[in-house]
């Protein structure tokens, strides 16, 4: 096929932008969706648990316990419930659902600490909501460990608590960092596949595709013109998400921003190719959108690792998750954005994404051409 001259291509791309900007509802969805998601996940659906009621029963009542209690009280995660003074009242409070956790300092706490260098604290948690229980147990161990570190700089620890945990990269267990890469993967995947497949199928539905094919405009240029607006819109979307994450959620982008954008564009191109592939088989816009939604949204949410850990899934699902492009994108973004790692740490994922992109694009291009014959 002969190459199009530039002005023909520009005419076509301009027309595509007109379609996008004339359709106010879709436009609103395109840009409203990421903003709404960021705000929802950032505030409403935060998995941080703040202001949990905690019962503290201090049988030891010495300087160490006083300092520890002060520290717990100062934390935004806990409100101390002072009404209960003996261990017998704990269960009743748990049953009423008021308190989530109780801490008991045994009478010999200070004694043990002074003489053996070790002392136990009893931590009782309401396990009826395991997620909350795990989270607040972690908060408490962080506070105690912090206290240990401040109290004694030598290697031997005067206090020991059962659960020792260290959260790297997200020491406060903030919700925002983990979901931002997930939202990025989800939004870019959805926008790219749904919008492009619908835009191409629309021409088929209208009957304009046939006119275009009879014209001297070659099929590859049709595809390029169709994809261009969505590529640019997705890049804009990406920048909006990053901007909101930094300003609204106070998320720090630790790695190289250009690497981040490069990886994202790679992922966008992969998603656009999937959209193209869907459009080859779909005959109606609704069909194309449904296919994109069903085949992309669920795998992206479930098999990417941002909602449920892949390591805990049955092995067939683990194997299948390797085929989901967003899985690799998610890992890459987490490494670059949250951990501040460079290209050397994500080259494998990048390579996988590049191969997926090239493979998908050439398959859909070939199918698109065959379809015309």
């Amino acid at each position, binding site marked *: 096929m002969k190459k199009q001259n530039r002005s023909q291509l520009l005419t076509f791309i301009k027309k595509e932008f007109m379609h996008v900007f004339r359709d106010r509802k879709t436009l609103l969805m395109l840009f409203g969706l990421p903003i709404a998601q960021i705000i929802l996940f950032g505030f409403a659906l935060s998995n941080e648990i703040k202001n949990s009621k905690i019962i503290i029963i201090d049988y030891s009542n010495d300087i160490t316990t006083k300092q520890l209690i002060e520290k717990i009280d100062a934390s935004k995660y806990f409100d101390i419930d002072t009404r209960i003074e003996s261990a017998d009242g704990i269960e009743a409070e748990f049953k009423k659902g008021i308190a989530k956790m109780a801490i008991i300092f045994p009478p010999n706490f200070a004694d043990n600490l002074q003489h053996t260098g070790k002392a136990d604290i009893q931590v009782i948690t309401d396990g009826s909501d395991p997620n909350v229980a795990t989270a607040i147990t972690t908060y408490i161990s962080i506070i105690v460990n912090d206290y240990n570190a401040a109290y004694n700089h030598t290697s031997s620890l005067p206090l020991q608590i059962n659960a020792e945990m260290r959260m790297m990269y997200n020491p406060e267990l903030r919700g925002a960092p983990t979901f931002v890469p997930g939202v990025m993967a989800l939004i870019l995947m959805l926008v790219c596949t749904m919008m492009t497949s619908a835009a191409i199928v629309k021409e088929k539905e209208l009957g304009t595709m046939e006119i275009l094919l009879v014209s*001297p405009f070659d099929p590859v240029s049709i595809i390029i013109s169709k994809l261009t607006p969505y590529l640019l819109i997705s890049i804009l979307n990406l920048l909006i998400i990053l901007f909101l994450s930094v300003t609204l959620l106070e998320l720090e982008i630790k790695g190289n921003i250009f690497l981040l954008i490069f990886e994202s564009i790679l992922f966008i191109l992969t998603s656009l190719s999937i959209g193209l592939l869907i459009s080859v088989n779909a005959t109606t816009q609704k069909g194309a959108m449904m296919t994109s939604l069903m085949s992309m949204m669920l795998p992206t949410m479930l098999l990417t690792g941002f909602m449920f850990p892949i390591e805990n899934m049955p092995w067939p699902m683990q194997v299948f998750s390797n085929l989901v492009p967003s899985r690799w994108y998610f890992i890459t973004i987490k490494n670059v954005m949250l951990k501040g790692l460079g290209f050397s740490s994500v080259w494998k994922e990048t390579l996988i994404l590049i191969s997926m992109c090239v493979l998908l694009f050439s398959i859909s291009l070939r199918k698109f051409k065959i379809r015309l014959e």
Partner: protein
Amino acid sequence: MMEVDVIRTENLTKKFGNFIAANELTFNVKKGEIFGFLGANGAGKTTAMRMLCGLLEPSSGKGMVAGYDIYTQRDDIKKNIGYMSQKFSLYDDLTVRENIRFYGGIYGLSRKEIAAKTAELLTELQLEKEAKVLVSQLPLGWKQKLAFSIAIVHDPQIVFLDEPTGGVDPVTRRQFWDLIYHASARGVTIFVTTHYMDEAEYCNRVSIMVDGVIAALDSPANLKLKYGANNMDEVFYQLARNATRGE
């Protein structure tokens, strides 16, 4: 004046597996002619038309369109033909002017040519006031006329019309045919498929396809004479009632 063939086919055949959609079609269309291409649903009209437009590769046989070979010179053919499909084929969410500009643009017309064409076309269709109106707001008849004018915006040698007047009222259909005559008078060859037999009467020559072959090809007057019919409807019925392919 010497008559020039703008379409010439020889035993043009298209098979899909065992099914022969178009069987050994041999015909020619002269420059400036209005050539009616008739046939029941499934008779092979669309297949034949798609082969001529370069959308479909023939299985065997020869074909020349606008002086170019349908196997090897499809790109040249595409530049020299216009096409209007049975589906309404303009962009609803673009204005009249934007549609003209877009189709002119993809056929490679210059900015100047497009401006001149747009003005000419709007005057001819009396759509000057509607230039900035979205196509979705035009009545169907106007859309159809606009679609035809846009199909020939690049001054093609031949324009292929695939059931262009489906769902249009008789008055608009008449106006639509005025446009066709007008184009034909300018030397544009018209290749038109239709279901309306009164429209077949407007054609210079008519070919009737039955079950993938051309069953008859002549001027409407000669066909009526040959089949002893009063109108094209009867001619068509006599030929098509023996068809074995249904819808």
